[in-house]
């Protein structure tokens, strides 16, 4: 479903600020795989995600999605089959528009946008049905401005909008990092449910080791622009946080320098 071949990316090459963000990354995901990516700041997690989304292009190597080489495909074309949820809950929705209109925009991913018809009763019912699965009462507030929702509600809506049109790949970029713990568990549960329901191939970046272990069937640990440890389905079942820290030390010969990852419970 998703294949990365020898991806290299260097920021500010040939300057004193030169930074190797990705160094020969080759990975592959099967349909329905859910991989969680952990790693310290600057490990290249976000760069990798942006590479998949098309906001950044690799210096070398190529990206294949569903048997198609999409390396040079611009972001908005690729977004036809990629769903994304951002870290900032404000980024995934349009605040000045209603819930219904926001849903309409995400529906537009799958087809040409019409200049004749707006939100019909049929699509409205469909939205309501999908919104009710969130179980936070948004289905009764179709005409409320999204800017009036709380951060958690907005993120839940973003998640729904990214998934209900069943994209080939779902990218989650630390999508719970800006939420308080109770909202965080809500979003994590929703993520689980929605990914399962639509059988989405998912790539999730997180800072929290427990989250990374709990969710998904695969795990990649990244450092200095490469995947330094990976766990498949069997290995991941028995994985614990100390295991991960040990693995990091074993590979790198140093402790993982990331307070957020260590302290996160």
């Amino acid at each position: 479903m998703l294949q990365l071949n020898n991806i290299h990316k260097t920021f500010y090459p040939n300057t004193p600020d030169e930074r190797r963000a990705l160094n020969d990354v080759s990975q592959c995901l099967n349909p329905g795989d859910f991989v969680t990516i952990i790693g310290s700041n600057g490990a290249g997690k976000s760069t990798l995600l942006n590479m998949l989304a098309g906001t950044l292009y690799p210096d070398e190597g190529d990206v294949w999605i569903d048997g198609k080489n999409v390396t040079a495909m611009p972001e908005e074309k690729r977004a036809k089959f990629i769903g994304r949820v951002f870290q900032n809950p404000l980024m995934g929705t349009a605040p000045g528009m209603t819930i219904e209109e926001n849903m309409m925009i995400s529906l537009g991913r799958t087809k040409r946008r019409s200049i004749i018809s707006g939100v019909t009763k049929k699509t409205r019912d469909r939205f309501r049905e999908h919104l009710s699965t969130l179980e936070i009462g948004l289905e009764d507030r179709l005409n409320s401005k999204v800017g009036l929702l709380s951060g958690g509600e907005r993120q839940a809506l973003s998640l729904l909008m990214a998934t209900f049109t069943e994209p080939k790949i779902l990218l989650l970029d630390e999508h719970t990092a800006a939420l308080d713990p109770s909202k965080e568990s809500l979003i994590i549960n929703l993520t689980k449910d929605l990914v399962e329901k639509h059988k989405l191939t998912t790539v999730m970046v997180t800072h929290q080791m427990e989250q990374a272990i709990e969710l998904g069937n695969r795990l990649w640990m990244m450092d200095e622009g490469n995947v330094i440890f990976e766990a498949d389905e069997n290995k991941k079942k028995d994985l614990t946080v100390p295991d991960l820290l040990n693995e990091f030390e074993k590979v790198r010969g140093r402790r993982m320098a990331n307070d957020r990852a260590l302290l996160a419970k």
Partner: protein
Amino acid sequence: MVGALYGAVESGLIYAIMALGVYISFRILDFPDLTVDGSFVTGGAVSSVMIVNGTNPFIATLAGAFAGLLAGVLTGLLHTKGNINPLLAGILMMIALYSVNLRLMGQPNIPMLNETTLFTTLSSWWQSMNLDGLLLIPFEWFGIADYAPRTFYVIVSMIVIVYLVKKLLDFFLRTEAGITLRATGDNQSMVRSFSTNTNLYIVAGMGLSNALVGLSGALVVQFNGFADVNLGVGMIIIGLASVIIGEVLFGKDKIVRMTLAVILGSIVYRAIYSLALRVEFLEASDMKLITALIVASALVIPNWLDKTNAKRQFKKSKKAALKQKGAVQHASAK
């Protein structure tokens, strides 16, 4: 006095179409577009040249709108493809259009007094139907026939035209494409992440906005009976004034309500304008200053009111808290 107010309603309705264009760029796309000063004249120039050359005034008017559309598309392209800051892109187009307009017109001023314009055509239709007599009846009933306008045809035909433009715009802004256009101004990166070429929407939105501006320019020159290359100076501020006055006085969240507010704002602006002209020590040349003052105060006063209200609320609740505390202390002292 009353006559001046009828005039205000008439020109308010004509300029309302321009204000709707400014609403699209300024509010919906969040693109402060100075092209308006140029594209307004371009619309007028194209239609006046065509009318002087004997084209059907309906076609000439539409051609004016189309010329505005082209100007808007160019501004949009300068911004999206050329990566030029929106304000600067608009200024560049405005300056460029000044020369283009002079070239189009061939002279700084085109009189159309003896030509067949949209308004002379409408007027002759109107006379042939003799509707003025009908509309005068209610005025006569109340014995205020002296205050009736000389003819109703401008107001009635402009209400019809503005109503059509508003209806079409309301309809479009609620279609899938319209929703996407609005969202592009609201959260562009989100719209792009749902597989939308936002540049296309910005360019199309700017085209639509300036098409309305061009249409309004074409109507204004025909209404005035002449086209002038300096007609557009300060037009963007007049548009902003209408949008902001409309929002402050009549605005609501709904699109249908917002477009209506912009139209009413344009009429109110013209009413203020004509009243200001009647103040003795003011001259016509002071109008730009007055417009700037209207816009500035329409922007500042609501903020200022909000703040003083919040302060008052704060003081009130503090007083109430103190009172309560005092009561508690009093009780405990007892």
